[in-house]
């Protein structure tokens, strides 16, 4: 036996799965680093943004967030479960949604080929980070609103290795009917029971009211960021940073981190947009670190004046109207905000979605409807959006894509052309 053969026997090559995992881990870290680097190279970058970038510039497992926030993490899929309830019970709500392309590869082999990239990436990221945790049970509880099929099937797709307890928040798909609203309120009471078990304490009216008031402060700060956006002073990539930090941190820390950024932006009189064309962005969510679409929009000379993406402006549910300060009155108010006012395309009675764009007084020069391949609700709704946009004389473009950067050049061609569509011709 020669010496090289002896070495091979003594030190067998690392397991291929481990090597693949290590490679994907490196690629994931590189993707986050590249997103952060490009933001720091952005013309509107200022060191104050590091307050938020520090929170999001690397992926974090639920366990890491638990250690950082000293609160047990409750994962939220979608955004129909009121954050205030988890917070009032001393839990840390964490939006479970990934925008990372590299992480998707870890889940690819076990998932359907034509699957929503967001869910694919989220499952990949969960697998990547759970393995790095001491315990595979990454989060204490996962709340799953029954929005789309991919969401409902999340635990099944995650497989047996996923030990996080799932609670399904059954979502009535008719949000304007009294029956639907009553059912959602019932669902919230069931959710509270589940969260109380997780937190090992009872939810009190005072604690819920305090959390509602704290989140009201956050919504007020969001409103200020949105006002800057409407004024053409906050590029879409930075608004994404604002939202990504909100989803990954405690509301208290986010508020503290936001204050100097807001102060800086409000001091700046310069409008960032130049001669850009103002557009409204709708459709499937865009998530950090996937800046592809927002960068292309910017490169094409377009400026996102507003959006209704669920990981962006729709994170902000607007002011809460409390007419009855009792415990059940607070729950009714939360139900109204998180269900009746929610414009997720999963709802059957979503006709008011376009009215919101029209009635907002924004007068966008165009609507960009972003559809992730396999995201059926937004794909279906794009037909209605296009029809309504045509009626209103607003140019409309549907961009179907996935997380991979390979279609960036062709998308840019479309967006550049969209910037030059003659709006007068639509009337």
């Amino acid at each position, binding site marked *: 036996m020669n010496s090289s053969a002896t070495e091979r026997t003594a030190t067998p090559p690392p397991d291929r799965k481990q090597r693949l995992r290590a490679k994907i881990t490196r690629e994931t870290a590189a993707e986050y680093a590249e997103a952060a680097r490009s933001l720091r190279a952005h013309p509107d970058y200022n060191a104050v943004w590091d307050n938020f970038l520090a929170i999001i510039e690397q992926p974090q497992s639920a366990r890491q967030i638990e250690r950082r926030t000293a609160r047990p993490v409750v994962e939220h899929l979608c955004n129909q479960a009121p954050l205030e309830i988890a917070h009032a019970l001393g839990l840390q709500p964490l939006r479970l949604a990934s925008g990372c392309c590299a992480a998707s590869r870890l889940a690819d082999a076990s998932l359907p080929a034509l699957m929503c990239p967001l869910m694919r990436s989220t499952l990949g990221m969960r697998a990547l980070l759970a393995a790095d945790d001491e315990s595979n049970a990454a989060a204490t509880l996962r709340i799953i609103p029954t929005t789309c099929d991919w969401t409902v099937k999340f635990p099944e797709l995650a497989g047996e290795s996923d030990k996080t307890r799932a609670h399904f928040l059954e979502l009535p798909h008719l949000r304007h009917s009294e029956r639907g609203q009553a059912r959602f309120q019932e669902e919230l009471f069931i959710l509270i029971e589940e969260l109380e078990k997780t937190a090992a304490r009872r939810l009190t009216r005072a604690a819920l009211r305090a959390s509602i008031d704290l989140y009201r402060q956050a919504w007020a700060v969001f409103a200020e960021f949105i006002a800057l956006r409407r004024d053409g002073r906050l590029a879409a990539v930075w608004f994404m940073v604002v939202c990504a930090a909100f989803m990954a941190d405690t509301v208290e820390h986010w508020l503290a981190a936001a204050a100097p950024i807001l102060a800086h932006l409000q001091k700046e009189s310069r409008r960032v947009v130049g001669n850009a064309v103002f557009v409204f962005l709708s459709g499937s969510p865009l998530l950090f670190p996937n800046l592809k679409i927002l960068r292309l929009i910017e490169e094409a000379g377009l400026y996102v004046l507003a959006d209704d993406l669920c990981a962006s402006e729709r994170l902000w549910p607007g002011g809460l109207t409390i007419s009855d300060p009792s415990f059940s009155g607070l729950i009714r108010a939360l139900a109204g905000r998180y269900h009746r006012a929610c414009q997720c395309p999963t709802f059957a009675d979503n006709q008011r979605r376009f009215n919101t764009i029209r009635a907002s007084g924004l007068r966008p020069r165009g609507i960009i409807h972003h559809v992730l391949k396999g995201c059926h609700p937004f794909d279906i709704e794009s037909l209605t959006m296009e029809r309504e946009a045509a009626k209103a004389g607003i*140019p409309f473009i549907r961009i179907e894509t996935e997380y991979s950067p390979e279609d960036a050049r062709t998308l840019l061609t*479309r967006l550049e052309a969209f910037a030059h*569509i003659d709006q007068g011709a639509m009337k």
Partner: protein
Amino acid sequence: MIVAGIDLGSTAIKLALVEDGVLLWHKAAPTAPGQEKIANALLAEGLSALGRAGEGVKKAVTGYGKNLMGGAEFAIDELSANCLGLFRQSGGQARSLINIGGQDVKVIQLTAQGAMSDFRMNDKCAAGCGRFFEVAARILDTPVEDFGALAATVAEPARINSTCAVFAESEIVSLMAEGVVKEKIIGGLHESVARRIAGLCAGRRLRDDVYLDGGSARNSGLLRALEDELCRDLHVLPLPQFTVALGAALAHPEA
């Protein structure tokens, strides 16, 4: 002052030299690494042919490679350039156009003033585009330029289901193995691409007059198949490959 409209496309680089709104010279070269060098060589050749070598020119660039061209003071997206070039060439008649490029197909609608009012493009796959015909030409060992004449000789083209360059390749090879003559195969290719383009036009209100341009518009077989599929006549202007380059030049502020 001469304005050079340079269209850096995925399969060909096209140059149009324009002065006072008049096309003076044009030429195309296959896209290859070093696009800027190729474009500058075309430009030098054109100026020399016009007897104006060394003269300063303004450059307007468009196409997928427009950001690769240094020294151009003006850039425009290819769809807007396409509208401008075609509208001018058609004497203001064009209201709808179908452009078959190397890697994409565009269906564009124009206003009565020649501005773009709407458009649709194929997705990222190059199925049914110029590149598809190049692949087929290689397998059939027949130049694309001969496709139109060959397809005209058959009444019943072969049925080809795929417009994907990869799948179509195996379909063509299978048909050849079955002894199907290449004229029928070429006719089938035209029909399959025409079906795909017609699908892209679905839901668009194609207004008279509809023009076909891009390099593939020179393929008379594809033109016939597309006219049959859309149930309407299509116009093809002289120099359909240069419409976009011409439009870029015309869009230059100093044109």
